[in-house]
């Protein structure tokens, strides 16, 4: 009995995978399929469900429903060890290596077949040399991991997976920590591996890399597959739109900003290096006028998070200057910037915006606790806090039982309303809104947008950083595109369209 020819070609197939975290659907009936010797790119924004899907494959979480076939045989992946036995190898974004041990010893960890209780290191080393030669990995099994470069450590992870018999290799955002040269080297290895019959699943949100390395591309958006295409049938622009969504945009009719409106914020050649000394923001220039919403579009991971944090004073830029109302605020602390009229609606509201385990009232005063009338002579005025909080809860329609309940007990939409209420009640002049509608339902999103427009009407300047093109198009007076830490172009509301923005998001300026 021979299985049909097509299933001999297919190495891995996942069908109708659904994973739910509480009421949140992380994977909604996801299908993917990889053939022998093929590279499948899994493309999607942060939170699109890529990692969840791979955790299912790695045996870390069990799906609510769905089927998995490996080599034509239906399997249930019971545990991470079982996943390895089935020939699945995962290279995590953050390496799982012990830096003080040699490569061979790292490979042996948790592996009884290498000898138990004392692994036969010599034997393992010889076997590793053979595998390393076979796949052209160029690794010395005796080398201590901490002495190796980041790119080599990643190859050690790949070697580890291969030694354990991986036929399907999952690489989770493998290039996010690599230099361009190391990325190039990694791609060489991926091509070599697929040439030997291995399958590779390459998780990324970098479009150029996806186009370079993959044979097929599956695009995930909000937990669902939005496209499953061969590389030859698509291009970066289409992929960008598939990834960020393509619903028809309604443009609001808003009064245009008068051209003579004065400049509120000026960002002058800001450069920022991350802890690995790689540039994340490169001489970035930007202005925001009074009464203007300036939208920043871009694919996730092009410096948006750092831009918001540098503006809020949480990160210090390595060079460049920031002006609010003509005053140089580059050296000011977050607190002084808040006094100068800055409001920050962070993208990660639970981590940066709220203290989840304290009451709503205590969250309202996070920025003003030291100021009158919230406190006097260092003593909190609870009457004032209660009354102001109750008023804000009413004004922003925050659905809650009491000002004494913790922020953690609110729904995501109400948590965001809490942040907005706090930030806007201070009468700010300049607002940084980072992904303000992330994770919110339609009603809450509408509410947030209305409040932002209300601030615009009041003559305040807003920098709206979002990967949701709909949001950018709906609200912005001007739209800039950020790519690899630089503003590629700034277009006015009238001339901007999805096609141009989509191309710019992939780094193409010659339109």
């Amino acid at each position, binding site marked *: 009995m021979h299985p049909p020819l097509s299933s001999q070609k297919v190495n891995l197939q996942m069908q109708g995978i659904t994973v739910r975290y509480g009421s949140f659907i992380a994977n909604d009936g996801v299908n993917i399929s990889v053939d022998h010797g093929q590279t499948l790119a899994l493309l999607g924004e942060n939170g699109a469900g890529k990692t969840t899907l791979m955790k299912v494959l790695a045996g870390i979480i069990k799906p609510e429903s769905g089927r998995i076939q490996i080599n034509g045989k239906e399997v249930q992946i019971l545990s991470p060890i079982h996943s390895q036995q089935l020939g699945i190898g995962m290279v995590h974004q953050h390496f799982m290596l012990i830096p003080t041990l040699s490569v061979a010893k790292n490979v042996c960890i948790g592996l009884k077949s290498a000898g138990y209780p004392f692994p036969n290191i010599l034997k393992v080393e010889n076997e590793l040399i053979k595998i390393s030669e076979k796949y052209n990995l160029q690794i010395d099994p005796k080398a201590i991991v901490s002495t190796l470069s980041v790119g080599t450590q990643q190859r050690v992870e790949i070697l580890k997976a291969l030694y354990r018999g991986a036929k399907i290799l999952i690489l989770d955002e493998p290039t996010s920590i690599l230099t361009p040269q190391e990325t190039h080297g990694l791609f060489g290895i991926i091509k070599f591996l697929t040439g030997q019959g291995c399958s590779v699943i390459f998780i990324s949100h970098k479009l150029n890399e996806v186009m370079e390395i993959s044979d097929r591309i599956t695009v995930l958006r909000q937990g669902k597959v939005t496209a499953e295409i061969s590389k030859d049938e698509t291009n970066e622009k289409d992929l960008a739109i598939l990834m960020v969504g393509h619903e028809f945009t309604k443009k609001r009719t808003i009064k245009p900003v008068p051209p003579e409106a004065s400049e509120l914020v000026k960002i002058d050649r800001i450069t920022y290096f991350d802890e690995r000394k790689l540039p994340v923001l490169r001489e970035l220039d930007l202005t925001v006028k009074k009464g203007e919403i300036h939208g920043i579009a871009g694919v996730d991971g092009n410096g948006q998070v750092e831009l918001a944090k540098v503006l809020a004073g949480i990160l210090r830029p390595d060079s460049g200057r920031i002006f609010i109302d003509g005053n140089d605020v580059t050296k000011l602390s*977050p607190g002084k910037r*808040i006094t100068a009229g800055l409001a920050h609606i962070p993208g990660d509201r639970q*981590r*940066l915006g*709220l*203290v989840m385990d304290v009451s709503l009232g205590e969250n309202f005063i996070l920025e003003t*606790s030291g100021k009158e009338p919230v406190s006097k002579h*260092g003593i*909190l005025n609870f009457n004032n806090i209660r009354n102001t909080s109750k008023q804000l809860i009413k004004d922003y329609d925050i659905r809650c039982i009491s000002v*004494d309940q913790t922020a953690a007990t609110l729904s995501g939409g109400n948590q965001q309303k809490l942040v907005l209420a706090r930030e806007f009640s201070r009468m700010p002049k300049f607002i940084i809104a980072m992904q303000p509608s992330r994770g919110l339902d339609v009603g809450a999103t509408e509410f947030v947008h209305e409040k932002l427009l209300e601030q615009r009407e009041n003559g305040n300047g807003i920098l709206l950083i979002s990967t949701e093109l709909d949001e950018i198009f709906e609200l912005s007076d001007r739209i800039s595109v950020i790519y690899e830490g630089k503003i590629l172009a700034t277009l006015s509301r009238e001339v901007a369209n999805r096609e141009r923005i989509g191309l710019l998001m992939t780094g193409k300026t010659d339109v």
Partner: protein
Amino acid sequence: MFNKADNHNIELEFKKQRRAETLTAAGSSIGAVILALIIGAVIIRLLGVNPFDAYRALIDGAFGTKNSIAETLLRAVPLAITGIGITAAFRASIFNVGAEGQLYLGATSAVCVGLAFPTLHPAILLPLMAIAGMITGALWGGIAVLLKLKFNANEMINTIMMNYIAIYFVSWLVHGPIQQPGSPLGQTAGLSDNAILPIILKQTRLHIGFIITLLMVLLTGFLIYRTVWGYQIRVTGKNMFASQAAGIKVKWVFLSSMLFSGAMAGLAGFFEAAGIQHRMIENISSGYGYTAIVVALLGQLNPFGVLLAAILFGGLQIGASTMETAVGVPASAVTLIQYLIVILFIGRKAFSLIIQQMKKNRKVAA
């Protein structure tokens, strides 16, 4: 919006729920103590003693007479005062394990001031000694936070190591530069009467430090729950990233919470030296700085809870020796009970997990 009456009912319901939560929290501390006593009873039984007799002797020893009550409260003083200091630091997520060393140094500098000005009026001399002890304790603790801020050095490890530095340094001092002339012991000369804390209960050793401890508990409760400083400590401890983004000076919060913590340990050192030993001795503390960590946690990082936990531990320690002489159970059985309390309290989350699992299983079975 809800109408007013509805709204009022919902708020009442919520308040009821909150009270229930507070009770559950206190219950987990009390539960740990009761469970530890039960396990302790089994062990005492295995030693061949009736546990009821043993516990009766224990309670009698701790609270039976005026003097035993005084001794229990006296033991609770350093535990409570160090415990509320540790509470402030832990609330800011600064893990001060260095109270022992801070206590030793605080006691030493308080005694040095007392020996230097033996003739000053007590109303001036005693506050001076207290201040000297508090400043020394605060500075010693502050170093660990400065190292954390400057070099990202873990304050938990540093405070543990600084304990050894402090304790051996004090040991050298009392055997060397400040040793009582002509004495072979590791101790200073005795303090003058002006430098000794007045007794508040006749025919006992209970000194005025106990009253001050009660006041400090009240003050710390006020600081933590009612002031901007306490608020900033609480929110920074829960989420330093959001606090920093909101403009709170988190570095100052970390440092000041430790300064307060160290000052309290120093104050406890002053009480031990000026209230009980009447001089500085080599082994001024029998691990109060460590026990106070347990006391702070068992008191749910609430100053009033800490006071109760301190009195409980004081009673256990004082009652232990009576139990030993009366029924022959070694006093170390009480040490065992103390650490059982710690283990059971730390493991309290496991209990609720087990209960949840049991409920789930029952549901599945039904």
